[in-house]
């Protein structure tokens, strides 16, 4: 309970606001660049999971997709639970100390992508008839033409895009956190996820 209160401190609330705006604005930039297989619309969510714990990550992910809905992209709303799980998993991997080595962190991104694809497939199949309404539908068409079911085709498409997108998103978050000043990082409730003990005398700073 005490950890939960710390995880939803005022600093976390402020971080979530910025993270959600980052999701939306960066997601839009990448959409306009038309880079295949990359969306980068969850780096804010991953960041919150890593810096403020899995529960804050979960809340950020869900709110992120609901906000897209309020801002004119209702297509994101059905995927809100998936976005929540991405934040949750980033938080869990962070707590396991996987951020401390780069390959473990990329592996965390890969696993998160796998779970995201598994959870998205039924939503894509049930709500959207198995298609994405974008260029990745070439993959869906290929799977369907070779005899896969709607669900299998949605999963195949999701595996390819989510594995690439989430691994890359985790990589971007890694670059960003490494570039943030230690004094700022210590303000977050899970700063021990990203700081080496040698970096700074943590307890000392937190007590002030």
């Amino acid at each position: 309970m005490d950890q939960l209160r710390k995880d939803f401190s005022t600093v976390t609330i402020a971080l979530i606001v910025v993270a959600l705006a980052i999701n939306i604005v960066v997601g839009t930039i990448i959409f306009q660049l038309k880079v295949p297989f990359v969306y980068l619309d969850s780096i804010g969510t991953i960041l919150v999971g890593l810096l403020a714990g899995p529960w804050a990550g979960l809340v950020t992910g869900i709110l992120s997709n609901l906000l897209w809905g309020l801002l004119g992209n209702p297509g994101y709303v059905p995927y809100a639970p998936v976005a929540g799980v991405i934040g949750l998993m980033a938080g869990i991997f962070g707590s396991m100390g996987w951020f401390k080595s780069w390959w473990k962190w990329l592996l965390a991104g890969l696993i998160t992508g796998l779970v995201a694809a598994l959870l998205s497939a039924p939503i894509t199949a049930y709500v959207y008839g198995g298609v994405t309404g974008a260029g990745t539908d070439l993959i869906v068409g290929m799977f369907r033409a070779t005899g896969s079911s709607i669900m299998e085709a949605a999963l195949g498409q999701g595996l390819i895009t989510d594995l690439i997108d989430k691994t890359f998103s985790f990589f971007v978050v890694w670059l960003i956190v490494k570039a943030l000043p230690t004094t700022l990082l210590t303000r977050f409730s899970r700063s021990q996820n990203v700081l080496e003990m040698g970096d700074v005398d943590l307890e000392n700073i937190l007590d002030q």
Partner: protein
Amino acid sequence: MTSATLYIDRDAGLQRLHPLTKLVISLFLIVLALVIPNMWAGYIVFLLGVVPLALWGGILQPLWSALWKIVLPFAISMFVIQGLFWTGGTPVVELGPLSFKAEGLVFATTITGRLLAIMGSFLLLSLGTPPDDLMISLEERGVPNSVTYIVLSTMQLVPGLQVRAGKIRDAQRARGLETEGSILQRMRSMMPLVEPLVLGSIIDVDERAIALEARGFSREASKSFYRPVPDRRWEQILRWMLFIASILLIVLRIFWPLINRYYLGAG
């Protein structure tokens, strides 16, 4: 202060409804479109539910212009992919070596209708409801005030961040960054556009938190509302009725095969 919102301020009946009434109506329309086992269900819900309500709020034109852009790409993909590649379907239209299958076309028609109804209902809510009123009325019913703050201030932050993103893009292009051209060039331009934007805005987090603390944000005393949201008795009753009807419809849909078998004597 500018805020990223779709809300269209008109003095019309829909806009005067309590935000929760609009939320419940939207959810009810979505449930209807999903539970009725008929390929035209979505179209009927859209034409008899979403369209009249949008007309009532004077927002049919903006709703439609947003809606078709969302639904059309899905519809095209579905008719092409599920129409052509339906495994073992009955061919209806021959196109050289390929053929459109009846089952695939029925499927694509069903889902397109559902999408019209679902996305239309969402847009009805976001075009017809001021977000601050929606969040305040949710907060009055127990949603934590931090959620209200998060949603509303994100909507205020987005336009500013978009301006900043535009400036970063211009600055990077002035230094020779290619944001158009081949896939490789566009991939290379991702990080120079994203990293300064994200770093710059995270640095602001601390200041934001201090500003909140200085205004007693984390104090646990009960808060009053600067902007009351009026509610009417008949709307409360309507909300409960629609809510109960939605639950009943979902339960009915889940148990329909059983009811069909044991009470109606069908196969």
